């Protein structure tokens, strides 16, 4: 019924979408691992990254790499700033206080964008060479897809090296395992948390570029759905675990593409519903996710 090339094509699509989810999920997972905070503002940083990239593409003659890298740096800074202003004053408060604050931060970022740039969607046009279709054997993909996957993999390798080889990275994993014990061992947790937000936000900005390039238009509320889906990905992989977030991101990407690609077309409108039904199933069957860490404390 489904030809091999068709299946291969769906795999490629799943890989592209999964790369985006994985990048967003990593940021959510790192922050959750350390602070037990579901950062609802994370998706909005993806949106900010997309807007910055568009501004750079339209108004400057900078090379394309800069249109990805500069937003990553700026949004990383924004993430640190948000943590400093909104979350750090709540250190030691009940977890729900930070959750509510993250909702408020999300609202501020969205409405700030509406206020300064209007709620109208904008076309996100990429240079011609990125849209060009490539053929590799039986599958076809745009250059953007290839670049997205390569960039995502590169960033994830970099991140893995960072958390396994550097002092701050190792401290970060220690904090995720047990924040109090890490502090007692003399780890500067404020510094570690700032790093976590910087890294997570920068990855979200990179994902924002890919997401915007994929869908061709951006608007102030665009971050909501990828942010929420990335959380599903993080839960599937085992929240708090960085490899888990990567795995969960790709699994979710494949699952979503396969749902649309292999089931009757009448169902394809239900793809977002499918993702969250999947979340409920995962919570029912394996609530700690696939690569559960010891991090998920009860109570």
């Amino acid at each position, binding site marked *: 019924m489904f030809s091999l090339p068709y299946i291969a094509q769906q795999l490629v699509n799943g890989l592209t979408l999964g790369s985006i989810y994985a990048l967003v999920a990593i940021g959510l997972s790192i922050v959750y691992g350390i602070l037990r905070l*579901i950062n609802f503002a994370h998706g909005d940083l993806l949106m900010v990254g997309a807007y910055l990239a568009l501004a750079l593409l339209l108004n400057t003659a900078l090379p394309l790499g800069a249109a990805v890298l500069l937003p990553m740096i700026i949004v990383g800074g924004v993430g640190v700033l948000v943590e400093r202003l909104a979350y750090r004053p*709540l250190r030691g408060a009940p977890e729900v206080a930070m959750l509510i604050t993250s909702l*408020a931060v999300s609202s501020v970022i969205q409405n700030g964008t509406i206020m300064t740039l209007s709620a109208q969607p904008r076309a996100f046009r990429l240079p011609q060479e990125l849209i060009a279709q490539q053929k590799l054997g039986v599958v076809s993909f745009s250059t953007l897809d290839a670049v997205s996957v390569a960039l995502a993999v590169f960033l994830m390798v970099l991140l893995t090296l960072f958390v396994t080889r550097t002092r701050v990275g190792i401290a970060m994993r220690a904090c995720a395992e047990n924040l109090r014990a890490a502090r007692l061992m003399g780890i500067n947790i404020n510094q570690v948390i700032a790093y976590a937000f910087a890294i997570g936000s920068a990855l979200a900005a990179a994902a924002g570029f890919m997401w915007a390039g994929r869908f061709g238009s951006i608007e102030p509320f665009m971050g909501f*759905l990828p942010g929420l889906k990335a959380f599903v990905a993080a839960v599937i992989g085992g929240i708090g675990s960085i490899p888990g977030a990567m795995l969960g991101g790709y699994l979710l990407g494949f699952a979503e593409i396969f749902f649309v690609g292999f089931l009757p077309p009448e169902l394809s409108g239900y793809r*977002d*519903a499918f993702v969250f039904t999947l*979340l*409920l199933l995962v919570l029912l069957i394996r*609530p700690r996710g696939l690569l559960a860490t010891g991090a998920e404390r009860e*109570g």
Partner: protein
Amino acid sequence: MSKNALFYLALLTGLVFLAQSMLNDYYQRILSVVFINIILTVSLNLTNGFVGDFSLGHAAFMSIGAYLSAVLTLPPASKASMMPQLPMWLSQLEVPFVLATILGGLLAALVAAVVGIPVLRLRGHYLAVATLGLMVIVRVVAINWTAVTRGAKGINGLPAFTNLWWVFGWALVTVYVIWRLVNSSYGRAMIAIREDATAAAARGVNVTAHRMLAFCVGAFFAGIAGALWGHLITAITPHSFSFLITFNVVVMLVVGGMGSISGSILGATVMTLVPEFLRHVETNLSLGGHPLYGLSQIIIAVTITLVMIFRRQGLLGGREVQLPRLFDRQRALPRARVDTAG
């Protein structure tokens, strides 16, 4: 019912009567929205304030209640033209408003139970994401199930049944039911779960069952509020019940103070009237010719952040306001109070 309760009930009823006969349509509508928001906030308080879980599902439950009640109350004639694909028995059906509202609430509670089974066994955090996911699911179904929901067009021309008396009556029912629930053994178990779930379980409290009860009762009243809202605005679309509604209810809850019913009433009232006022300011405000849409929402969000940082317990700090006792001279003994400031 005590003399005091009767007196205050009569007073409120009188005030609503006055409002209904003296205020113009605009103010009556705002007042109706205040009552709907009271229903929403008080019912969300049960999950978020008393049990300590964090549900963000109110928009989804409202949507369910609004859609079901709309399909039930629309006269068969308009159903025949608007939704020709509806099954025969459903398109012939025309249910009284009060019954349609209750059925809307029951369906919302049923959906809450289905979501609650996987999620409420876990610690509260997953509930926030799962209920937001539910909102997306409900919206996607509303967009795609065109035979019943008319898809993205939505359902319009709902009979405008909702008036001040309905919303007032339902607000009374909500407050009464939740107040009785919270002050029963169920409510004490819920508060125990919030303070320490492990300890509560060790003392024999069925943690999951109580969380489930709170979540479903909350969803029931959210469904009621959705039905009332639909028949107030008379049109619903899949995007009527967005994240913004949920967020605003959370704001009302937090401003009033989680874990206090009178706080919820106060928070709902203040945070309905203030944004309404800000909206007027916002539309007339500009910065060098640049309109400032979104400013009021930013002000609300910043306020809520400041509340979280500086007065986490909200206006009432988990305490209840006692109305002065007017009739029995004999002062009641000071009642033991569970400290809910947590």
